[in-house]
């Protein structure tokens, strides 16, 4: 981690918070619509001990994690299949190119019609939206595998499946991991969007909806702040993990150690 970069980031964030606070103090904005930054931050701090919010956050994170695991379980094997069978890939590519750009949130109303169970609904939209980067990266990673590396194992008499498992998969793993990291960001967005649109009994989205109906903009923003923070932390943890696990890849591609 670059110390100066972190410092600059902290200065930027602090500057924004201070500016927002000044705008609040100046009375330019009615603080029923946009509460003071200090109020929001205090609210966010208060949420840490708020049993209701903790239950909601736990519910969202559970859905997020389940959705992400399901995504990996679906998209990685699908990617492996398409990545090793070029004809099958050519057949489904137009479909992928058509479906992928559709904003994922737009499928939520359809999912609401299709699924009676709230958990299934959320998982379905998460898996649908998060699968794309994992699928595409797996296919791309497999295409990028060095043919000479595969030939090496073939020359030692390894059959196609063992070659896939021992060369293609490890070699594509860094790409797959990046796909999963992108998917994790999408999954948290979809989890909260589904809660906001489809309702349900618990979740950060539900907490925000309830805060809105009570005109507590400060709590809405505080809950949103926590959701954003979670996204940042999850992403950083995964970046760190990737650097550790795939050092060989980053050394090769000239990335930092």
């Amino acid at each position, binding site marked *: 981690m670059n110390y100066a970069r972190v410092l600059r980031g902290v200065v930027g964030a602090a500057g924004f918070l201070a500016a927002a606070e000044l705008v609040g103090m100046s009375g330019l904005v009615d603080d029923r619509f946009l509460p003071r930054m200090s109020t929001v931050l205090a609210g966010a701090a208060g949420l840490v001990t708020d049993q209701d919010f903790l239950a909601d956050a736990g519910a969202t994170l559970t859905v997020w994690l389940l959705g992400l695991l399901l995504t990996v379980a679906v998209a990685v094997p699908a990617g492996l299949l398409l990545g090793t069978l070029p004809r099958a890939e050519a057949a489904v590519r137009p479909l992928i190119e058509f479906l992928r750009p559709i904003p994922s949130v737009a499928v939520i109303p359809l999912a609401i019609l299709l699924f009676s169970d709230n958990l299934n609904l959320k998982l379905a939209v998460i898996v649908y939206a998060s699968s794309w980067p994992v699928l595409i990266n797996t296919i791309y990673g497999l295409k990028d595998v*060095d043919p*000479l*590396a595969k*030939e*090496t*194992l*073939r*020359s*030692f*008499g*390894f059959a196609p499946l063992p070659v896939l498992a*021992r*060369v293609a998969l*490890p*070699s594509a*793993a860094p790409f797959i991991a990046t796909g999963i990291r992108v998917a994790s960001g999408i999954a948290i967005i979809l989890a909260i969007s589904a809660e906001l649109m489809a309702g349900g009994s618990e979740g950060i989205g539900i907490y925000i909806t309830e805060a809105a109906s009570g005109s507590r903009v400060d709590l809405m923003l505080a809950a949103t702040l926590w959701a954003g923070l979670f996204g940042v932390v999850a992403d950083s943890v995964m970046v760190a993990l990737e650097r550790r696990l*795939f050092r*060989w*890849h980053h*050394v*090769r591609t000239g990335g930092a150690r």
Partner: protein
Amino acid sequence: MLEITDLVHSYGSHRVLGGVSFSVAEGELVSVVGPSGCGKSTLLRSVAGLIRPSGGRITLGGEPVERTPDNLAIVFQDYSRSLFPWMSAANNVALPLRRKGMDRRRRREAAMTALEQVGLADAGGKFPWEMSGGMQQRVSIARALAYRPSLLLMDEPFGSVDAQTREDLEDLVLNVCAHHGITILLITHDIDESVYVGDRVIVLTRSPTRVAADLEIGLGRSRDQIATRQLDAFVRLRAEVGRLVRGGHTTTPASVLEKH
């Protein structure tokens, strides 16, 4: 043990091999030399069963090569692509031994022994990208040795290392061949090298490639980078191979041999 008869191969309409025939006896180190792009790698890939040649016949130990034969190993020129960067040197060497049904401990022991043989006793825990090019190619050679192949194929194995390392590796291969009795088919475009390491040198023409000459080297097995290269016989053979590679005609191999 290896018999190649009228081997023909085309990529699309581009005929690369135009009927190559030669054989390699048990325990021999045969070098194959030919101009760049004449189909040396194509020849090697056909022998390894990695590609299916358009025509001709290859038998290994009397059996026709249809798929990759058992007990065959290849050392490629491009060690950095042929070694697996996510594995330590020892694990790279041990991996193919899974095919031999060896358990983990025996694989590990065999890998360590092979690494010792190539002078890398202490480097087993290193990763390929932490090693110099010469060390990486030693790991590739160790991987092939540990597998105990009856035929070892080498495709320009010293093409990507510096001159000093190249000489060291040439001597390493000569040693290995003498001590383990492995049959080696070594491909090179380097005329000097083909004569220095070979018991026999097969010279190939430009594509569509045929065998231009099959020369017995007869310099004996113990060779020395400086003394051997100064021998009259070496100098004469090198000149002969050089002429042949450039498309000249052979003085009969017998006459070359008579002179020394």
